[in-house]
């Protein structure tokens, strides 16, 4: 217990978490601090490119052990499956409508790349290696959850939500393309390519992440302000229970396919995290009746900070216990 606590505290006083907290506080106090949209988008492009490239270069360096395909497969299964669990939980714990519940479920089956990146930082800080291809797993988990959610809604007789344009948009979503593309470039150019651009994608990475989390904090804080009244205790409970369930399942999958400690933690984090960039845009197109305030507040306002502060150290401790690592 003490170990988790120490880990949590040392995690909490990192510049990354504190930057997020600063953003939350500034939004809460109604400061006019904002990051321009173009700069926020620029930082997210930077982060996706860097994380993808580094993952690819690491695969090029360490070779692919047999688990790559298994890990990607596990990710896809998780992304398809988790929404059903989330949906069942929501219908039990909360009074959300079917559509709202399905929309929320889609977010929890998909992933938050920033949570993934933060977990990578924590692992690096503790010198724990992780499989480079976990980035590919992250990319593979972005989209399937959306299909599950659409299926959940269609099943209830509200008509099919599957249209081919939408499918193409979901699969060729900018963040998936960038992550996979940068991963491929990393694989192709390897350590040599990484060395060439390391002063751009490695050294300043953590600093950019701080500013990006400041922005996430600002958006989450503004969201929470506006969601007052809409977000009740049951929803908050879901927003914390779901990542715990997800991470436990992720732990099982990680063990099953034989990931190392680092890879297992990342699998847990992927399963535990909820999307707040790609899925919301898809939901606006596919399920416009679902209330965006609910799913955005849950994923960005509750689950994201939970994972960032307590979740990641907790998952690491769990994985260490189980793997004896």
């Amino acid at each position, binding site marked *: 217990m003490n170990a988790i606590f120490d880990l949590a505290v040392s995690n909490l006083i990192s510049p990354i978490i504190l930057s997020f907290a600063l953003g939350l506080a500034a939004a809460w106090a109604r400061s006019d601090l904002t*990051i321009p949209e173009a700069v*926020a988008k620029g930082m997210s492009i930077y982060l996706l490119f860097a994380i993808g490239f580094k993952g690819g270069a690491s695969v090029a360096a360490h070779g692919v052990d047999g688990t790559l395909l298994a890990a990607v497969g596990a990710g896809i299964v998780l992304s398809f499956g988790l929404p059903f669990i989330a949906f069942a939980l929501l219908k039990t714990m909360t009074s959300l409508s079917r559509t709202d519940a399905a929309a929320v479920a889609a977010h929890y089956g998909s992933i938050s790349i920033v949570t993934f990146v933060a977990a990578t930082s924590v692992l690096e800080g503790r010198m724990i290696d992780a499989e480079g291809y976990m980035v590919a797993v992250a990319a593979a988990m972005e989209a399937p959850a959306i299909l599950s959610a659409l299926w959940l809604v269609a099943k209830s007789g509200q008509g099919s939500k599957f249209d081919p344009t939408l499918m193409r948009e979901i699969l060729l979503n900018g963040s998936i393309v960038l992550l996979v593309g940068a991963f491929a470039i990393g694989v192709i150019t390897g350590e040599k390519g990484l060395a060439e651009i390391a002063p751009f994608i490695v050294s300043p990475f953590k600093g950019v992440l701080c500013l990006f989390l400041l922005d996430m904090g600002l958006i989450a804080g503004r969201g929470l302000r506006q969601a007052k009244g809409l977000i009740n205790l049951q929803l908050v409970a879901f927003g914390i229970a779901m990542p715990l369930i997800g991470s436990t399942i992720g732990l099982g999958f990680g063990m099953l396919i034989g990931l190392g400690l680092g890879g297992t933690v990342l699998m847990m984090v992927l399963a535990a995290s909820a999307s707040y*960039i790609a899925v919301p845009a898809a939901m606006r197109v596919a399920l416009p009746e679902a209330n*965006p305030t609910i799913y955005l507040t849950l994923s960005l306002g509750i689950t994201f900070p939970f994972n960032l502060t307590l979740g990641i150290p907790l998952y690491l401790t769990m994985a260490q216990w189980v793997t004896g690592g």
Partner: protein
Amino acid sequence: MEMHDAKRVEIMIEAPLERRLTDALHAAEVTGFTVLPVLGGSGRSGRWSRDGQVGRAGMVAVICLIKPERLDTLLDAAFAVVEPHIGVVSITDAQVLRAERF
């Protein structure tokens, strides 16, 4: 200067639907329009702002100048996209120079 009657249609629509709307306009052979960025707004679904957003969040404003007799075609095409979504459609009487362009 010679001016010609036209309608100015302004459609505020969620950004993730922009391509669907403009594709629908093209399909209806409405090939002239301009897309303006939107910073934020307020409506029945509350206030929002584009500051710091990363995804295809927020709205855009699509402006079409069109011959009055083609207004209904345009509105039918636009409405089919906008209808299930939040968004606002307004029409104003206008006049244009260079009518051959519309």
